[in-house]
Structures are given as structure tokens and as C-alpha cells.
């Protein structure tokens, strides 16, 4: 399976500040009553974006000026809680292509990488700089460069970081491991044969 080599992502950004933003908040559980992921994008951050009657609450994603954003900015421990892949799926289906945060919860990070959504980390001050540039001009293009490991925006640049295994997988077009895992079948059966509990 040929996958795109994701070496950089460029686009407008939107800042959703806060720490410990959990996957229940990213996509509330009631929207997981589905057997396909299609349609989840509409409900991204639903309960912090909308009142029960469907009217909008103040939220960056509701602001017209940020509607075209493809990069999400946030705080520490983004994506904590439930392992639901519905969270990165909702992010992707909404149209976001990458996330810059101070750090990420483990399972969310892995799920996102497998979907080809780069989750990169940056220092809080640096995220604030990007957020300030975007706030001043929402049309600002932000580039996440996974080769140089920097984010460029409005003539500035800041350092970003990403776990090497994920970065390698993205830039080399092997972020979805399934093809490689399938290729290992002979070795899988060999390893399985050494474990008594796996005997059929």
C-alpha cells in the first residue's frame, strides 16, 4: 500500500487553548453510536461548541475567521482519556490535518499517527507565538516541517519535536503499519509457535 509521504503540512491554524483536553470532550460518547466514522467531523468538540438546542457557544471553531483552519493548536496532555479513535477521526473528518500541542496522551498520539495526522510538540511560549500570529491575522499560513522540525509562520520560526518513530513513519510514507505488519506473517507464526497459550 503506497501511502503519502507527509513531510510537511501547511495551512491556517486555530487555537483551542487548555490542558488535559480529553477525548470525551473532543467527541462526546453519544456520537460514537455509529458503525462508520463518516459524519463525526460535524460533532468535533460538540458539547463545548453547542448548546443542547443546537445554538452555538463561543468557541474558536465557531468563529468564521477560523473556519478554514487545517492546523490545531492546543495545550498539554491533549487527547487524554478514552482510546476512541473516533477522536482523531473527528479531527480529520472536520478537515484538520495536523496538531501542535505541548504534549499528547499516549493512545491518542498513536491513533493520530496511524491516520497520518502529525502530532508535534512545541514549547508553550512558541505555541503562544503561533497563536498570536494567527489571532492577529487568521489568514496566516503555518507550515509544520517534519524534516527540519520547525514550524514557520509570519516570517518567524519555532522548534517543534516529534517522537522519531512517528516522524520516520510520516516522512517515509509508512504511518499506517498494516502493510508492513502483514509482510511479517511468517515471523508472526514463528513467534506464536513459541507461546503455549497460542496453540489452537
Amino acid at each position, binding site marked *: 500500500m503506497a501511502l503519502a509521504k507527509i513531510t510537511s503540512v501547511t495551512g491556517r491554524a486555530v487555537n483551542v487553548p*487548555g*490542558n*488535559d483536553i*480529553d477525548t*470525551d*470532550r473532543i467527541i*462526546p*460518547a*453519544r456520537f*460514537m*453510536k*455509529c*458503525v*462508520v*466514522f463518516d459524519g463525526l467531523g460535524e460533532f468535533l468538540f460538540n*458539547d*463545548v461548541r453547542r448548546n*443542547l438546542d443546537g445554538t452555538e457557544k463561543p468557541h474558536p471553531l465557531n468563529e468564521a475567521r477560523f473556519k478554514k483552519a487545517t492546523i490545531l493548536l492546543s495545550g*498539554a*496532555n491533549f487527547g*487524554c*482519556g*478514552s*482510546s*476512541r*479513535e*473516533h477522536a482523531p477521526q473527528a479531527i480529520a473528518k472536520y478537515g484538520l490535518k495536523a496538531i501542535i500541542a505541548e*504534549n499528547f*496522551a*499516549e*493512545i491518542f498520539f*498513536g*491513533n493520530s499517527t*496511524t*491516520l497520518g495526522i502529525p502530532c508535534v510538540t512545541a514549547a508553550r511560549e512558541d505555541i503562544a507565538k503561533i497563536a498570536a500570529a494567527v489571532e492577529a491575522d487568521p489568514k496566516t499560513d503555518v507550515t509544520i516541517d517534519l524534516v527540519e522540525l520547525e514550524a514557520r509562520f509570519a516570517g518567524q520560526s519555532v522548534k517543534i519535536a516529534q*517522537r*522519531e*518513530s*512517528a516522524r*520516520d*513513519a510520516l516522512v*517515509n510514507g*509508512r504511518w499506517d*503499519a*498494516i502493510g*508492513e*505488519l*502483514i509482510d*511479517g*506473517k511468517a*515471523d*508472526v507464526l514463528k*513467534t*506464536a509457535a*513459541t*507461546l*503455549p*497459550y*497460542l496453540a*489452537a
Partner: protein
Amino acid sequence: MPKSLFQKVWDAHTVRTLANGQTQLLIGTHLIHEVTSPQAFGMLRDLGLKVLMPHRTFATVDHIVPTDQLVEPYADPLAQAMMDEIRKNCADYGVTFFDRASGKQGIVHIVGPEQGITQPGTTIACGDSHTSTHGAFGAIAFGIGTSQVRDVLATQTMALGALKVRRIEVNGKLRPGVYAKDVILHIIRTLGVNGGTGFAYEYAGNVFAGFTMEERMTVCNMSIEGGARVGYVNPDETTFAYLKGRPYSPKGAAWDAAVTHWKSFASDANATYDDVVKINAADIAPTVTWGINPAQAISITENIPSPETATSDDDKVGIIEALAYMKLPAGAPIKGTKISVAFLGSCTNGRLSDFQEVAKYIKGRKVAPGVKAIAVPGSQIVGLQCEKLGLDKILVEAGFEWRAAGCSMCLAMNPDKLVGDQLCASSSNRNFKGRQGSTTGRTVLMSPLMVAAAAVTGVVSDAREVFHVVNS
């Protein structure tokens, strides 16, 4: 070289190193449920792939099942669709399915151990973050996303980077009225919600050695609430005694061989760890949450924090946000906070011993007027065991509703939900905003006996006082 259980199990299941440096890890046991598996089967179909080891894949339904309706079709057509889907997928791919008609259905993390499917020295994966529960048996158990569910279905492996190991030792004697739930809430409170990122937690010390399997499961269950994807306890005689005679446990000569094999996976005495944390059991009190993540917890005798007492700017922002959502007064005692709902159940505290402990103390007492109290066994088998012992009657006489097995009010995917800003005393594991089904609903996490104490008094209470607990 001496090794920890994590390293031994990891090594035994390593297939090979992948191009990006991650490990292709063999997953011996795959558990699936209705919420995170349908899309994975859809991906298999799209790719024209089969399930590699259907005999190592086990399914049940838990999240969406109504606990007050057994007859299908369910009132919620979406829930029925998910039910139909998992049934069809299991039939199409030859996967064992513990359906409701089997009498073995329940929350996936209760069913695995109960059936003897969860075994020491194994790797387990499930599309659910509380898969860490199975670590109680000395297994390395990972919560995974749906694409990884697809990977495990198709290849019985997944791509993963090794974790560091932190040993958390709890030594000494727990005080009366202090439970496994308090131990893990205390650990999370101490190390923080993301303190465990990148780590597997090895729980050790004489408190864990003395714990029953059910107590160990309660602790391992909530590892993820502290950011640790994996949590485990080394297997010992308690583990083997629990597993003996279960449907999927080895039998006869195979049993003895299995025990010897399982023992070999326990951490070596002189294993080295990336970090060691020591906790004194006597420092742990009945613990309750006051905020919107499980680390925002205090002992029942403490006061709710106020922004002025914050230890950092982040902490301050967190406190302000949490108090606003919880509608709780800064600096006031948590004790006495009015509740509307009491929930006993979930994969954290929905096992036989949880209901036994509550029944022991609640017998002859009544749920306070105006409090809705529900007790939900974690599996059909737990339900039956409770009924045989008459625990259901004791709970019903006290004013609890006794329900059918499922996740129930732990999350908002079935009809059991909070309404408006109701405050729920809950034995579950997450107090996130909106977690229990109302976007303004409030959750206070605590041990089952503390839930019972809140139920009978109508306010968050110290179970030790309410029930005169002298030793547990």
C-alpha cells in the same frame, strides 16, 4: 540480566523490528466490543483481509446495552444497529461472541478475567483504554484505537514502541474503610493525570501482595487515568488460585505447566526500573474527586481546593475551570455536597466483592429521599452471583435499582444518563465534563462503599462514619 515482567513479556512477544524502529508485537489475546470494532471490520472488508487468529479473539457487548431492557429490538435504533453489527461480524469471521443470550455477557474487562481468558505472561489488546485492567494478572494489556483493532484482527500484531517501567510500591497497612479504589485515586492524585505517559506501571509492595484479584483489577483499571497505558501486578498464588478451574484456564497437566510458565514471567527480584515510587499505605484515606479529571482528588476530610492554593499557573487555571463546571465552592469541605444520583458499577467497581462490601453495610439502611440509586453488575455472571447471595435484594430493599449487566452510567452510550447538572456519586473511573451523559452533569468518583454512604445520606459522606467501619 534481571528483567521486569514487562520486559519479559515484551521480549517473548516481539516478532521483529519495523522500519521506523517500532516493534511488531504479537498480541496473544484480542478482546473486542461493539463500539470500537465495527469500523475495524469495515476496514478488513475494504482491504479483503481475514482475521488471522479467530480463536484468540473474543467479543462481548457492554457500552450500548440498555440495562433495563433485555428484549430486542432496543428502543434506540442506533444501539440495535451496533448490536446487529457485532453479531454479524463475529459470525462472519468466526469470533467467539459472549452475547446476552450466552449468560456470559458483560463489560469486556470483567468478562476476560471471569472466563479465564486473561492469563499471566500474555499480551492483550482491546479497543478500550481500560484494557489495563487485565494487567492485574501479570499480563501486558494495551488499550488501542480502531485502526490497531484492524491490525490485530488481520495480523495478530501491532506496531508499538517499548515503554519505560515505573514500579509503584505501596507498603504498610491500609486503614479501615480504605479500598483499592482509594489506592489508585491516591496514586493518580500524587503522580498526576499525565505522570504515567510513556510508562508501564508495575504495582507492588505488601498491599498488592495482600490484595485479591478483584482489588488488583480495580487499581490496574485506572492506570490510564494516570496516563499509563499499561499497569500490572506480578502473578502469584492469588492469581493462580483465581484462574484455577475457569472455562478458558488450562486443565490437568497443562495447568501445572502453565503455572510454572506463568511464574517465570514475574519480575526478577533485582530487576531495574526506570523509576520507583514508594507510597505509605497509612497515608491513604477514602478519596473522592472534586474536579473534572481523576487527579483532581482529595481525601474526604479535606477541603475543596481554591485558586489561591494553586501550586502553579496551570493548576490555578485547572482549579478555576473545574470549580466552575462542578459548581462547587472553593475552600469548602467536600463532605456534605448534595448528590442526586448514586451509581454502583463499571469495569472499575462492578464485581462481586464490590456489591458484597456494600451489601454488608447497607443492609437495613435506606437510600435518602430524592436520590436515584442504581446498582449495575459488571457481567451477567456477577449479577447471578449477587442474586444467589441475595445481595440484589438487600440493595433493592435499601432503595437501589438492580439492573442488567453493562457499562450503564459510566458513560453516555445507553439510556442510563445524568439529567441536567445532577451530581453523581460514582464508583466508575472518569469524571470528565459530560462523561455521564449530560453536558452539565457532574461526577464525583469514589469507592463503592463511599457511594453507598452518599446514597443513604444524600450528600458526599465519610463511609467510615456513616457505617461505623472499624475494619474492612
